C-alpha cells in the first residue's frame, strides 16, 4: 500500500492530509478537491480548512474529542482517487505585467545562473511558462505559483533578504511567489509587478484564487512606474479553459 496520502496531526488542534512528498499538479488538485469535500461535509469539529501546495489542513475545536473526526476523515480520504479530481470551477487567466530589469530584479542573475540559464533565457522562461495559482498563503491574497521547469529547483536563501516590496516576484524550488505585502524573505527576487493582491476595503478583497492561470509578461521600468500609479496595476483578467 502506498504511503500517500498521509494523515498527521498539526499542533494540538489541527490535522493535515498530505498527498505527495513533492509538489505535483495532481497532488495540488487533490488537496483542493479534498478541501471542497470537507467543507461540504460540515463536520461539527471542523472550525476552518485551508490548502497548501499538496495538503489540506483542518483546524478543529481544541476541546472536542477528535477520534470520531479522525475516523470520518480517514474514510473520506480513502473513498476516492483524489489525484484524479478536476480543478475547481470558474478559473481565470490573469496577466500581471512584470519588470525584470535592474533593481526590480536584484537576484535574477543569481537565480538564472543556478538554473543554468542566461538572464535573457531566464526572463523568457518566467514570462512564457504555463503557470497557475497552486495555493494562497503566507500573507493575505499571496499566491504560490507553479510549476516551473525542473532547472528552477533552486533552494531558498540561507540568509533572509531584509525586505522586498509588495508586488515582488520571487523564485525558489520550481515555484514563484508574488508578494502581497512588503516582507523579508528567503526567496530570490526576479521581478517586480504593480499587483495589488489584497484590498481589505474592496468588495472582493482577494485578487487571485487557487486554480487561476497566471502569466508575467515583461514590461520596462518606465511602464512599471506608470502601472504603479494605476489602481489595477495593468492586470487583465479573462475566463480560461486552460487547466
Amino acid at each position, binding site marked *: 500500500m502506498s504511503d500517500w496520502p498521509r494523515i498527521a496531526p498539526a499542533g494540538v488542534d489541527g490535522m493535515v492530509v498530505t498527498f505527495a512528498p513533492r509538489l505535483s499538479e495532481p497532488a495540488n488538485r487533490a488537496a483542493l478537491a479534498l478541501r471542497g469535500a470537507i467543507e461540504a461535509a460540515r463536520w461539527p469539529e471542523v472550525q476552518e480548512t485551508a490548502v497548501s501546495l499538496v495538503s489540506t489542513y483542518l483546524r478543529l475545536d481544541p476541546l472536542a474529542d477528535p477520534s470520531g473526526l479522525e475516523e470520518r476523515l480517514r474514510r473520506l480520504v480513502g473513498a476516492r482517487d483524489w489525484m484524479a479530481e478536476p480543478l475547481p470551477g470558474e478559473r481565470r487567466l490573469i496577466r500581471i505585467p512584470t519588470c525584470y530589469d535592474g533593481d526590480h530584479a536584484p537576484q535574477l542573475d543569481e537565480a538564472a545562473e543556478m538554473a543554468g540559464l542566461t538572464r535573457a533565457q531566464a526572463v523568457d522562461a518566467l514570462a512564457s511558462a504555463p503557470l497557475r495559482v497552486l495555493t494562497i498563503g503566507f500573507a493575505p491574497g499571496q499566491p504560490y505559483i507553479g510549476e516551473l521547469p525542473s532547472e528552477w529547483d533552486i533552494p531558498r536563501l540561507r540568509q533572509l533578504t531584509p525586505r522586498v516590496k509588495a508586488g515582488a516576484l520571487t523564485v525558489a524550488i520550481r515555484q514563484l511567489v508574488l508578494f*502581497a505585502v512588503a516582507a523579508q524573505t528567503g526567496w530570490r527576487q526576479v521581478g517586480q509587478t504593480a499587483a495589488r493582491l489584497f484590498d481589505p476595503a474592496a468588495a472582493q478583497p482577494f485578487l487571485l484564487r487557487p486554480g487561476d492561470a497566471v502569466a508575467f509578461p515583461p514590461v520596462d521600468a518606465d511602464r512599471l512606474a506608470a502601472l504603479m500609479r494605476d489602481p489595477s496595476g495593468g492586470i487583465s483578467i479573462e475566463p480560461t479553459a486552460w487547466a
Partner: protein
Amino acid sequence: MGLIVLASSAGVTLQDEGRPGWLAQGLSRGGAADPVALAEGAALLGQSTGLAVVELANVPARFRTTKTLRIALTGAPFRATLRESGEDRPLTWNTSHALPPGAELSLSPAEGGFAYLAPAGGIEAPLVLGARSAHLAAGIGRALKAEEELALGPDPGGPVDMVLEPLPRFGGGEVRVVESLQTSAFPPEQMERFRRTTFRRDARGNRMGVRLNPENGMGFEAPGGLSILSEIVQPGDIQITGDGTPYVLLCECQTTGGYPRIATVLPCDLPRVAQAPPGAALSFRFVSRAEGREAMADHARALASLRDSLRPRLRDPAAMADLLSYNLIGGVVSAHHHEDAP
C-alpha cells in the same frame, strides 16, 4: 466618545479576538497578542471578551477622558499614572478603575510585554472582515494616532476597584509543546538538545513572532530543511530559520511557511511566550496531544472562572503614609475595607 489619544506610537493598536476563518486566503487570525489579558479585562468590567481594547506592544501611550469612564488595565504590568486636577497618582494593575472626565492616563512599559487598556463598552470601530483589530502585517488598520478620539460602546455597568490575580504567564518559564509536522525531520540528538536547552527571548520580536536565542549558542538544522515544501503554519509553531535559530510564531504570523518546525506551542501557553520580556528564560516540554487537549480544557475553565476570582481592591499599604499610626488612630481596619471610588 470618551477617550482621546494624546500620545501614541507604532505599537499602539486596537485589538480584539481577531479574525479566525481567513486562513485559506492567507490571512492569520491576529487579535490580541495576549488573549488572556483580553479575558481578564472583560472579567474586571463584566463585559464580553469580544470588545475592542487598546494594546500597547512594550511602548508608552497617553490618553485623556472626556467623560466618567470605567476601564481595566491588564496584561504585562505597565506603570499607570492618572493626572487629575494637577495631581498625579498611580493606578494599580489588573484592576478596574473609574476615571473622572478630563483626567490624563499615562501608561509606560516596565519589564516589557503587551499591556491592555480596556474601556467599558469597548472601542467602536468599523468591522473589517469581521473584526476591529489592526493587523499591520496584512495592511489592515493602523496604529492609533495622537489627537484621535476613540468612540466607546455603551457601558454595561458594574463595579470598579475590583482586582484579579492574573493567570501566571509573565517572566518566561516552561512552555508546553506538541510535535509538529516536521519534528521528525530533526535528528534525535538535536531533539534531545532542544528539550534540554534554555532559550533567552531576543529583544527583537513583535506580533508576528519572537526569536529565541539558545543559551549555549548552538542552533538547530533539519537536513534538507531549506528545500521543504511550503506548508500551513499556525501561531505557536516554532520555526527553525536558515541560521538555526528558533522563532516562535505569534498571532499575526504568516499562514504558510517553508522553514521546518521543530515543535508547536500549546495555544494556552503561547501568552507566556508573547509576554516574556527580552532576556527572559524559556524552555520547552513536550506533551502528548491528549495532554495538550487536557491543558486546553483546564485553561478554558480558568478563563471561565476569572469573574469568580474578582475581589475588591484593598488599600495599598505602600500608598499609605504610615500604616501603623493609621491603625492606631483609625482603629481596626476591616479586611474588606476598600478605598472610596475617586
